[in-house]
C-alpha cells in the first residue's frame, strides 16, 4: 500500500508498504529517519516516542496505515535548523545522555511535558517520564535536564 504522512512539516510518501509494518518501521527504514529507536517494539520502553497529531505516541504501536494523512513530529523535527530545542540542549549539558538510545523518546516526552506544564514538579516529571526506560543514567541527570529545560523555556 501507499502511505502519505506529514513528517516534521514535510509531506512524505512511502510506497510498497506491507500492511503489517509499523509507523516506526516506515520512519526508520523507508523515510530515512532512524532517530526514533527500536528498543522493544512493544510499547514498553518509550524509545520510539513521536508526536502523532500533537500527542506523544509509541510509533511501534501505530500501524503504518493508521498514520495516513496525519501529522508526525520525530526527534529529528525538534531542532530548528542548527538551533537545538532547549530540551535537547539541556540533555547534552546536564549529562542526561549516555548511550543515548532512550534519548530521542525521552526528548519527545519531556518536550511534551514542558509544553503542557511549563514548571513541572519532580513528581510530575517522574510521572510523565515513567513510560520511558533508561538503562544507563539512573535518571537523576534526566531530572536535572528536564528542570533545566523548563527554566530555559520560561525565559525564552
Amino acid at each position: 500500500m501507499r502511505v502519505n504522512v506529514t513528517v516534521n512539516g514535510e509531506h512524505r510518501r512511502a510506497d510498497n508498504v506491507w500492511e503489517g509494518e509499523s509507523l516506526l518501521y516506515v520512519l526508520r527504514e523507508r523515510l530515512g529517519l532512524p532517530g526514533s529507536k527500536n528498543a522493544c517494539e512493544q510499547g514498553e520502553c518509550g524509545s520510539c516516542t513521536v508526536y502523532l497529531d500533537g500527542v506523544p505516541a509509541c510509533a511501534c504501536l501505530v500501524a503504518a496505515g493508521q498514520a495516513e494523512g496525519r501529522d508526525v513530529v520525530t526527534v529529528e523535527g525538534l531542532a530548528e535548523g542548527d538551533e537545538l530545542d532547549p530540551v535537547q540542549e539541556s540533555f547534552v549539558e546536564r549529562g542526561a545522555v549516555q548511550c543515548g538510545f532512550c534519548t530521542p523518546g525521552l526528548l519527545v516526552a519531556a518536550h511534551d511535558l514542558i509544553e503542557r506544564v511549563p514548571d513541572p514538579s519532580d513528581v510530575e516529571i517522574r510521572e510523565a517520564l515513567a513510560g520511558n526506560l533508561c538503562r544507563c543514567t539512573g535518571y537523576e541527570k534526566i531530572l536535572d535536564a528536564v528542570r533545566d529545560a523548563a527554566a530555559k523555556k520560561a525565559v525564552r
Partner: protein
Amino acid sequence: MSAPARSPQELHDTIAGGIGESPLRPDGTLKVRGEFAYSSDLWHEDMLWGATLRSPHPHARIVRLDVSRALAQPGVHAVLTHEDVPGENVYGLKYQDTPALAADLVRYQGEPIAILAADHPEIARQALKEIVVEYDVLEPITDPERAAHDDTLPKLHPDGNLVRHQRIVKGDPAATADVVVSGVYEIGMQDQAFLGPESGLAVPAEDGGVDLYLATQWLHVDQRQTAKALGLPLEKVRLTLSGVGGAFGGREDLSMQIHSCMLALRTGRPVKMSYNRLESFFGHVHRHPAKMYYEHGATRDGKLVYVRARMYFDGGAYASKTPVVVGNGTTLSVGPYDVPNAHIEGWGVYTNNPTCGAMRGLGAVQPTYAYESQMDKLASALDLDPAELRIRNALSEGSTVVTGQVVDFPAPVAELVQRVRDLPLPPEPAGERDIRELPGGASNTTHGEGVVRGVGYGVTIKNISYAEGLDDYSTARVRLEVLGGEAVAMVHTAAAEVGQGLVTLQQQIARTELGLTRVSVHPADTSVGDAGSSSASRQTYVTGGAVRNACRAVAEAVYARLGVPAEGMSLVGGKVVAADGEVVADLAELLGDTAIEETREFHHRPTYPLDPETGQGDAHVQYGFSAHRAVVDVDLDLGLVKVVQLDCAQDVGKAMNPDAVVAQIQGGSAQGLGLAVMEEILVKDGKVRNPSFTDYLIPTILDMPPMRVDVLERPDPHAPYGVRGVGEPPTISATPAIANAIRAATGLELPRVPIRPEHITGV
C-alpha cells in the same frame, strides 16, 4: 562494495576541558538530534535482512533438518545451517565450546540452528517457519548444585558438567569463634537489558573478505572468533564499531557476528541483522544465578575470625565467562574486610539453563549480596551497629586479602562507610503523604498505614581489569596535523564507547597532554591495535593509559623535530614552551603540511594465576570500593517496596570527568536496585518465562529515588593519573544495601534477591 550509506561518524565536536574537568560528550549533539548511527540504524542500498531460527527446547537432539521449503520462498536468498559454516563451527571467550549453529545437540532454549537472508524482515520471519526441524527432546539439567557433584547426570560437554572449581584457603580454615552466624543465599538471573538491540551490517568485500559494522564491547575478540568460523585470515574480516546502545557485559559474547557475515558472503550482498526484544533475551548471555552457603565467625567485640563459604554459579549451556565468574567470586568472597582465616570453594557448571556470562559487577555481585547479608546478621548477633561492624573490620592499605595479595594502594573502606553513614537522612514521614511517593505509588494502594521504614548498608570490593595472569593491554594512535591553520589531534583506538563516555575522556587526555583545543575521535575499528574489552571497569585505566602514552610519544617527536631536549618542555595552547615559560615554537608553523603520528600500547602491571589448591596468588591489578546506604518504605500488607533514598560513597582514585563519574555511579546503582527488588529472568525447566520488557521489569524513573553521591579521590600510585575503575562497584553494593534496608524494616530473613512482594507477605 562501498561503505554503508548510514555508518559510524567521526566525532569532531570539541568542547573545552581537560583531565579533571567535565566537558560535554562529543557525540551528545548527534545523539539528541537523532542523527547518531547506532548499529540498528545502519543501512546499505541493496541490503538484505537476516534472521535466526532458534531451538524451542532447552535440551534436544536434532534428528532432521530440512531447509528446502524455506529456500523456495519468494524473496529468500539464502538459508544456512551448521553444514555451511565455512571454518570451525565453534567459538568461545574462554573455552571453545559454543557452535555458531547447532549441529546435533541443542543445549539451551534459543540456541541458533539456522539462519536466512530475505528482502524484508517479515519475509524472513515467515520463511523461518518453513524450516523443518525434528527433535528428540531430552530431559534438561537445571540444578547447578547437582551438576557440580552428580557424575551420573548426562554430560553436556565432553569433559563433563564442571566448568571451573576454585578453592581458597587462608590461615587456619578450621578456626573457631565465639559468635557464629550462617545463611544460605540465592540470587536470580539478571539481564543486562541494554536498550539498543543486537544489530550489525555485514558487507561483502572485493577481496573475498567482509566488513562488519556492529555494536560490541571488544572488536578484536569478535574479529578473532568470527574469522575462525568463516575460515578467513584476520585481515579479511574487518570490524568497525557503530553506535552502541548500552552493553553492561551483554555484548562480550558473539550474537549476530558470524551469522551476518556468513549470509553476506553467501549472497554477495550486504546483510543487516537486528534482533527484536524477544530474540535479544535469547541472543545474549545473562548474569549467573548463584546459591551460596556462608558461615562467619567473630569475636565478641566484633572482629571477624573466619569466613567459610561454598558457592555455586549456574553457567548455563556454554562456558562464556563462567571461569572468570568463579575466579572473581572466590577471590572477592569475603568482601572489603580483614579476615585472618578463610575456606572458600566455588563451582561454575554447565546446565541446560540460558547461558550466563558477563554482566556489570562480574562475579562480585553474588558474594557481596551474601556476605553483606551475613554482616548484618552478625551485627545483630553482636548487638552492634551494622555500619560500626563494617568499620571495625574494614580492609585498609597494607592489608592482606584472602588470596594472600597485599593491598599496596589506598583502600579507604572505613572512610567510605563513615561518609555514607554521615550523609543526611530523609525526613521521617509525618502527617499526610503524597501517595505517589509511597509504596504502590499512584495505584493508591495505601495512604501510609502499614508502611514501615528501614535503613541498610552495602559495601563492596571489585577487581579492576583482567586478572589471573592475563596480559591486559590497549593500543592508541594519535596523529597531530594542521587543519584550518590550527594544530589538531586525532585519536584512534579500537576501544568501544558503549555509553560510558570513553570518547569524551580520549579527547580530555589528548587536550591535556598536547595542550590543544581541538581533538577529534576516529571511529573505533580493527585497523588499529587491540584495545581489549569495554568491561571490567578497565577502559579509562588501559585505553586512557594508551592515549596518554601515544600523546607523550607525539610530544617527544615534536621536541625531536625542533632539536630541543624533551626535559622541561611542554605543549601549551598550541605552542612549544620551555620550563622558564619562553615560547620555543608554534606547533602549527612547525608542522606545516606534515603530520606526526605515533602508536603506543599500555600494559598494566602483571598479575598471576591462583594456586589451584590454595587459591593463593596476586591475581588482581587493583580494587575499587564503594558503599551504599539505602532507605526504604515497605508496605507490610502488600509486600510493596519504595526505595526512598539511595546514597553512595565511592573512591575513584582520580575523577577524570567528575560529572561522568557521578553519572556512572547513579546508573550503576539503578541496576543494583533492579536486582534487589524486581529484575529476574524467570527460568523453569530450562525455559524462559518472561522474555519481554512487559514481564522483565527494569527500574523506571518512578522507581529510582533521589541519590546523593560522595566521590573520594585517593590516587592509586600504580595507575595512569591515579585512576581507579568506576563502572562496576556501585551496581554491586546497591543491591545488599536495599536488601538489608528491607530486612531492617520487616525483620524478615529474606535470603533471596530479587525480593518480591510474596517474600515479604509470606503469601
